[in-house]
């Protein structure tokens, strides 16, 4: 694409204009003279890989940091924001990707945290609850205002986060990855809410790793790469390929199923496994599910949030106890073994939430990588440091972790590289079966493609891979077989040549069928 971006100032409908924004940190140029317009009543989407400077730009626009040079014009007036609350007072608010809720408080208390509605006798809880209910109705989410946030699933927590931002009337709303944990239906609802907001003149800045999803809602696309804008365009003129090309500078492909070898024996076999719901004993989140995976095979499990994917994988890995059924690894029943024993026998899990379940933040990259295979470098009673170093260095090379070295703190890595560390940690145990729960969550498209390439390489060498995803595009990449889960059961099974529509229909999220249902209801009433 054109290196010098076409830049068309549109004074009338530009509510906020950032001009020649430069942000340097020491010698690093995070932003190199960026011009960015937020259009009144429109959704402006900012695309870019991790590290492109999206967040820096958003932090500047929301007053969290100040630019090294450049100006911000709000309604044509030059402004400087002294703080985030200063920007908020001027009508700019931001939904951070990272949830910032108090899990021990109710939905109502979280939404009004810090700006409680005062009544005659203290906080007017009734009014707060009423407004919360209205927000939840707007978002079509059946959440009682008094539910504790910790009892909500991740997607619902994200809804609460969004509701909190909506409860403040702002003119400009910046949404950084608001949908990372939402189901397709919830995303639809959010998009409807966004359209309502824009119709009322609210301007939205939208950032998402789900490119296709973002494409649906965007009016205007801006692509940022290495601190500079590489392309801007009206949504009418662009497609996925255009975005990806401008983001990464080349054609991108998540890969295809590895071929050229025959699958081996059945490596993992799940027989009639049920997992009880943690909150109610009658319901099962995984309901008598059976599944067999051969070595060398890559199986993708697709499903909405709450379909039971995570529970199934955690049960196979030994984190959750099944209420029935058997799990066989290479023909041996491993149901009664703990996690450590399963790892030793070659069954590993890469968990969904790498911060919470994958990494030890207090340890170095190397100590994280070697954590699951300590036994491999214990000599006598003691750890062999030289052997550990060899193992860590091999692992860093093997999974292409970009790091200053094994002793670097784990927090110094990018999200994609942290994910590679979690995968590398499990791969160093030489597993026969690898389960990955949403391995692409929150990592950029380049890292995603690298992770998938790594998995197909390993599969070609005989590893059985099972990964879950909530992005259809990912099902249609490296998987030989696609399994769709719906309410704890397998609702459909496809080969690698399935279509997106088939998969989405089987997961129960097809919007089309919902509409038909509504229509039939109407007919009935008539």
């Amino acid at each position, binding site marked *: 694409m054109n290196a010098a971006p076409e830049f068309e100032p549109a004074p009338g409908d530009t509510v906020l204009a950032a001009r020649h924004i430069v942000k340097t*940190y020491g010698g690093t140029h995070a932003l190199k003279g960026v011009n960015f317009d937020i259009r009144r009543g429109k959704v402006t989407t900012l695309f870019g890989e991790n590290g492109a400077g999206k967040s*820096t730009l958003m932090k500047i626009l929301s007053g969290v940091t100040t630019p090294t040079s450049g100006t911000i014009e709000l309604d044509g007036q030059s402004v400087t924001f002294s*703080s985030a609350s200063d920007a908020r007072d001027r009508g700019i608010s931001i939904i951070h990707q990272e949830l910032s809720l108090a899990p021990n408080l109710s939905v109502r208390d979280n939404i009004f945290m810090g700006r409680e509605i005062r009544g005659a006798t203290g906080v007017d809880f009734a009014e707060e609850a009423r407004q919360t209910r209205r927000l939840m109705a707007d978002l079509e989410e059946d959440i009682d205002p008094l539910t504790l946030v910790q009892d909500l699933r991740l997607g619902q927590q994200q809804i609460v986060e969004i509701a909190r931002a909506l409860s403040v009337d702002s003119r400009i709303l910046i949404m950084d990855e608001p949908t990372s944990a939402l189901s397709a239906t919830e995303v639809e609802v959010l998009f409807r809410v966004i359209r309502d907001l824009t119709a009322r003149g609210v301007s939205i800045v939208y950032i998402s790793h789900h490119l296709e999803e973002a494409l649906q809602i965007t009016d205007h696309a801006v692509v940022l790469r290495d601190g500079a804008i590489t392309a801007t365009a009206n949504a009418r003129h662009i497609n996925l390929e255009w975005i990806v090309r401008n983001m990464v500078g080349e054609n991108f492909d998540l890969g295809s199923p590895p071929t050229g070898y025959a699958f081996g024996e059945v490596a993992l076999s799940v027989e009639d496994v049920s997992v009880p719901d943690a909150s109610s004993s009658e319901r099962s989140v995984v309901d008598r599910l059976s599944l067999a995976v051969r070595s060398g095979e890559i199986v993708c499990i697709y499903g909405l949030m709450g379909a039971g994917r995570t529970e199934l994988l955690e049960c196979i890995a030994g984190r959750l106890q099944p209420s029935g059924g058997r799990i066989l690894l290479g023909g041996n029943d491993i149901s009664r073994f703990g996690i450590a024993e399963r790892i030793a026998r070659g069954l590993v899990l890469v968990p969904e939430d790498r911060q919470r379940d994958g990494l030890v933040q207090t340890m170095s990259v190397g100590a994280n990588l070697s954590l699951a295979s300590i036994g491999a470098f214990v000599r006598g009673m003691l750890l062999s440091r030289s052997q550990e170093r060899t193992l860590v260095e091999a692992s860093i090379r093997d999974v292409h972790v970009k790091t200053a070295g094994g002793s670097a703190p784990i927090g*110094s890595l990018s999200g994609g590289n942290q994910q590679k560390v979690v995968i590398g940690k499990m791969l160093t145990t030489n597993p026969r079966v690898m389960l990955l729960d949403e391995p692409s969550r929150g990592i950029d498209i380049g890292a995603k493609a690298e992770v998938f390439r790594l998995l197909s390489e390993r599969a070609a060498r005989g590893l059985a891979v099972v990964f879950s995803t909530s992005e259809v595009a990912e099902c249609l990449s490296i998987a030989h077989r696609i399994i769709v889960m719906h309410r704890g059961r397998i609702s459909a099974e496809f080969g690698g040549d399935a279509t997106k529509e088939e998969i989405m229909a089987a997961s129960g999220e097809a919007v089309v069928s919902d509409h038909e249902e509504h229509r039939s209801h109407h007919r009935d009433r008539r």
Partner: protein
Amino acid sequence: MTDASPDRSRSPRVSADGFSLAKLLLEGRAFFALIAIIIVFSLLSPYYFSVGNFLTMASHVAIFGILAVGMLLVILNGGIDLSVGSTLGFSGVIAGFLMQGVQLTSFGVILYPPVWVVAVLVCVLGALVGLVNGVLIAWLKVPAFVATLGMLYVVRGAALLMTNGLTYNDLGGKPELGNTGFEWLGFNRLLDIPIGVLVMAVIAIIGSIILNRTAFGRWLYASGGNERAAELSGVPVKQVQVSVYMLSGICAAVAGLILSSELTSAGPTAGTSYELTAIAAVVIGGAALTGGRGNIRGTLVGAFVIGFLSDGLVIIGVSAYWQTVFTGAVIVLAVLLNAIQYRRRVKLPSTAGGSPTSPQKDKATTADPALEKTAG
């Protein structure tokens, strides 16, 4: 090393290069504090700076140092052990009881176990107290604070019950019974160094090896840093947790033996509130109460800071009340500095926002793509 792209590997290197005096002072703060204490008291008192005095003070430190090593293991695991003071007292009482001879009525004999048997039995007892703590915490999910607080009372009560509140005064043993030598721990010196100090050194070295060179040590750091991640990596987190409390109990028992040997008596109230001093030593040594961070070296320095400070205050004649105030102030200061140190490291990935404090911090947040993402 790997094909680190210049862009992504920049931030860690930059912070490594930005090594400043302030950072050195912050990270070595306990050590510098110790040196400062030694200098100040040496100037204030001619008696302070002498080998003899240092050895005397070191033998005072030994009791707390041994407790603190055990406490460090527990704190690294993210727990706390409030029962060590009581365990220390109870161990002394049990040692005293065994030294008086165990009367087996049904056989009509009195057993006088030799001193080494007494020592082993007392250590087993300490391990048992730790086992109860560990099982309560790891398997029955009682919060560590509550479980060990309960044991603090139970064990102290047991010690009082055994002696009826009295003290065993005669721990010397009799040559004809073959149980002499108990005072060896508290009074003897090897190469002019008190045995208690040597025991502390040995325990510290063993602890250091366990932490740095064994699988158990790695498991301990991992499960203290993130229990869920450790568990999913195959770390036997529950066993680690139980073991840690047992080791802490053993350390308390050893300290109990040394203390009662030094005093040649075993009172049921010995070691009251020692658990707090041990925790203070660990905290001054830079360990995080949230687990996963800390080391033996720092903890020992922490114990020496407390010991040398309070002994120094005694030597220059400051009242015991003021000593308490000073000790408290040092603890608060230590925690304050811990907070500063760990804020820099821990909070970086999650909250990149905030005010532009140090240029270094801001650099890390943006040069690093990971932080960029999470920071939003």
